[in-house]
C-alpha cells in the first residue's frame, strides 16, 4: 500500500501511560498528522507531589506504590472522557525510560498487559522524546528540523531534531539539571519541596538588579550547562544577607534571571550553529514565565520562532507519551511481549521514524 493511502485510514486511538517519576499520567490520542492536538481525546493526571513533600523529595518506593494504586482509576477516567471502552483502543504506549525503575515498571507492566489482552501493538516511549514532542499538541505545531531546549527536573539539554526520532544532543548539563537547580536552591532558601515553582513565584516580587549572579559557562564557546556553582553563590549571598522577606524575593529574582539568561544565550548559539529558525521548549522548567517571555522576545529580535507546550504539558503527562507512541505505532514500530524498562537510555540511540 502506498504511504498516502495509509495516512488516509482513520487510525485507532492510542492509550498513553506515564509513570517515570512522581506523576501518573494517562491519555488517549488518535494520530492526526496535520494537527496532532486535534486528536487528543482525553487526558488524566495524578500528581504525587503532596505525598513526597513530607519526605523532602521523591521516595522511589512510595512513588511506585502510588502508581499501582492510581493508574487504573486514571485509565477508567480517560476512557470515560473519551467515551470509549478498552476495545476501542488500537495501541498502547508507555514510558519505558529514563526514570525510576520501579515506577517505570508499574506503568509498563500494566500498559503492556492491556495491549496483550486487547491483542493490539504496544510501544515503549523515551520520556524525553515525549517531552520534546509535547509542543506538537498545540495549534500550529512545529515541523522538523528544529532545536529543542529540554529543561526538566532531571535534564538540561539542547537537542537538534532533524526529524522525529533523529536526535543529536548539542549540549548537556555537566552537573545539576535546570529544574534540579531551581529545586535545590529553593531548599537552601528554606522553601518547601518542590521548590522550583515556589521560587519562580517568589522571584516575581523580587527587584531587578538587587542581586546579580554569574551566567555559568557563557564566557566560553560551547552549548553545555553547569548549574551547581550557581546554587552555592546563591546560598552564600542568602547567608550573608539580612534574610528579610524582600531579600528572599530579590535573591530568587537574581537566581531566576541568571538561569534564564544562561538558557537564552545557549539557545541563541544553538540556533546559530544549526542554522535553524525554530526553537521548541519543553520540560517542567518550560513552565517558567520569565523563560517563556525572554525567549519569545529573543525570537522576535533574532527572527526565530518559539514553540511552547501549554503549561500542563510542560511537566510530566500522559498526552506526550500517547503522542510519541502514536507516531511510532503509525510508522509500524512496536514492542514484543517482554516488559522492558530502562532507567538510563540515550536519546540519540532511538530508532528513526
Amino acid at each position, binding site marked *: 500500500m502506498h504511504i498516502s493511502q495509509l495516512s488516509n485510514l482513520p487510525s485507532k486511538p492510542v492509550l498513553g501511560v506515564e509513570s517515570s517519576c512522581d506523576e501518573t499520567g494517562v491519555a488517549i490520542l488518535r494520530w492526526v498528522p496535520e494537527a496532532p492536538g486535534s486528536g487528543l481525546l482525553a487526558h488524566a493526571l495524578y500528581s504525587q507531589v503532596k505525598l513526597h513533600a513530607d519526605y523532602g523529595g521523591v521516595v522511589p518506593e512510595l512513588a511506585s*506504590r502510588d502508581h*499501582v494504586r492510581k493508574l487504573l482509576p486514571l485509565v*477508567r477516567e480517560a476512557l470515560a472522557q473519551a467515551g470509549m471502552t478498552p476495545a476501542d483502543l488500537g495501541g498502547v504506549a508507555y514510558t519505558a525510560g529514563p526514570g525510576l525503575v520501579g515506577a517505570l*515498571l508499574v506503568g509498563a507492566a500494566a500498559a503492556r498487559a*492491556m495491549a496483550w*489482552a486487547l491483542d493490539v501493538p504496544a510501544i515503549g516511549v523515551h520520556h524525553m522524546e515525549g517531552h520534546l514532542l509535547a509542543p506538537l499538541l498545540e495549534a500550529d505545531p512545529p515541523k522538523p528540523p528544529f532545536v529543542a531546549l529540554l529543561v526538566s527536573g532531571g535534564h538540561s539539554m539542547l537537542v537538534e531534531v532533524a526529524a522525529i526520532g533523529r536526535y543529536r544532543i548539542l549540549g548537556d548539563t555537566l552537573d545539576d539539571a535546570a529544574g534540579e537547580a531551581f529545586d535545590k536552591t529553593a531548599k537552601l532558601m528554606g522553601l518547601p519541596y518542590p521548590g522550583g515553582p515556589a521560587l519562580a513565584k517568589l522571584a516575581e516580587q523580587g527587584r531587578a538588579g538587587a542581586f546579580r549572579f554569574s551566567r555559568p559557562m557563557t564566557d566560553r564557546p560551547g552549548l553545555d550547562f553547569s548549574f551547581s556553582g550557581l546554587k552555592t553563590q546563591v546560598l552564600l549571598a542568602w547567608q550573608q544577607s539580612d534574610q528579610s522577606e524582600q531579600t528572599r524575593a530579590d535573591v530568587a529574582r537574581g537566581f531566576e534571571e541568571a538561569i534564564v539568561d544562561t538558557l537564552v544565550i545557549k539557545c541563541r548559539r544553538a540556533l546559530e550553529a544549526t542554522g535553524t529558525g525554530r526553537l521548541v521548549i519543553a520540560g517542567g522548567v518550560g513552565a517558567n514565565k520569565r523563560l517563556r517571555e525572554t525567549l519569545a522576545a529573543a525570537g522576535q529580535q533574532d527572527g526565530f520562532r518559539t514553540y511552547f507546550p501549554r503549561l500542563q504539558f510542560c511537566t510530566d503527562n500522559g498526552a506526550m507519551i500517547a503522542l510519541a507512541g502514536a507516531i511510532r505505532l503509525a510508522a509500524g514500530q512496536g514492542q514484543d*511481549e517482554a516488559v522492558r524498562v530502562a532507567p538510563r537510555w540515550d536519546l540519540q540511540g532511538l530508532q528513526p521514524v
Partner: protein
Amino acid sequence: MRDAGRFACGVREFRTMNLLAIETSTEACSIALVHGQQVFARSELAPRRHAELALPMADALLAEAGLGRHALDAIAVGRGPGAFTGVRLGVALAQGMALALDRPVVPVSSLAALALEALEDEAAILAVIDARMGEIYAACYRRDGNGGLVVLDDERVCRPDALVLPEADVWNVVGSGWASYADVLRGHLTGGLRQADGDRYPQARHVAELAVREYQAGRAVAPEQALPVYLRDKVALTLAEQGRATP
C-alpha cells in the same frame, strides 16, 4: 467504576472455568492456566527476568490449552508479600489484563500459595519468606482436607527471633525464610518437624487453585481493587521523623 459485587453472580462451573494466574513475588516467575479440570503451568527461577518472561509464558499456556485471551473468566495474582517490585509487577500485569478484558481479579496471598508447597498431610504449615533487612514474612496454616487452607496465624513481617507460633504437634516448614534462618526458626517450633524445605517458592498453580475457590465464593474484585500487600509499610522517614532521629 464497576461494581465489584457484580462479579459474584453468574459464576461458572469449575469444569468450564478458565483462569490465568500470575505469581512473581519471589525468585520464581510462574504463570498457570486453569481450563476446566486441567491446570497448565510454567515456572522458572529467574531473578530479575520476571518482567520479560511473564507474558510470553501466558501465551504459551493459552496456546497449549487452545484458548484465546477472551476465553479467560478471571485473572488471579499472588498479591504478596514478597519482593516489592515483583509483587507490583504481578499486580500491574493482572490489573492491566483484567481491565482490558473486562474481567475481575482474584488476589491471593503469596504466603498461602507457598503453604500449598508443603506435604499433603495434617501437619501445621509455616510458610516463611526471607523479607531481607533481617526480617521474614510468615504465616501459619493447615490443610482443610479439601484442597484448601485454614489460617492458624495471620501473615506478618517480623524479625525471625520475634516470631511467635501457635501450638502444634507436627510442622511442615516451607520457603526461603527457612533457608536463611533455619536455626532461629527451629527454636520456635513446639512440636516435631516433618518437612523443612527452604527451596520452595510460591507458585502460580497454587495461586490458581486458591483463586478458583475464592472466585466461586464470590470474592473476585474489580481490577483496580486488586492491590499489593507488602506487610512492610514503613519504607522511609518523613522530614519530621528524620529531625527526631538525628538530635
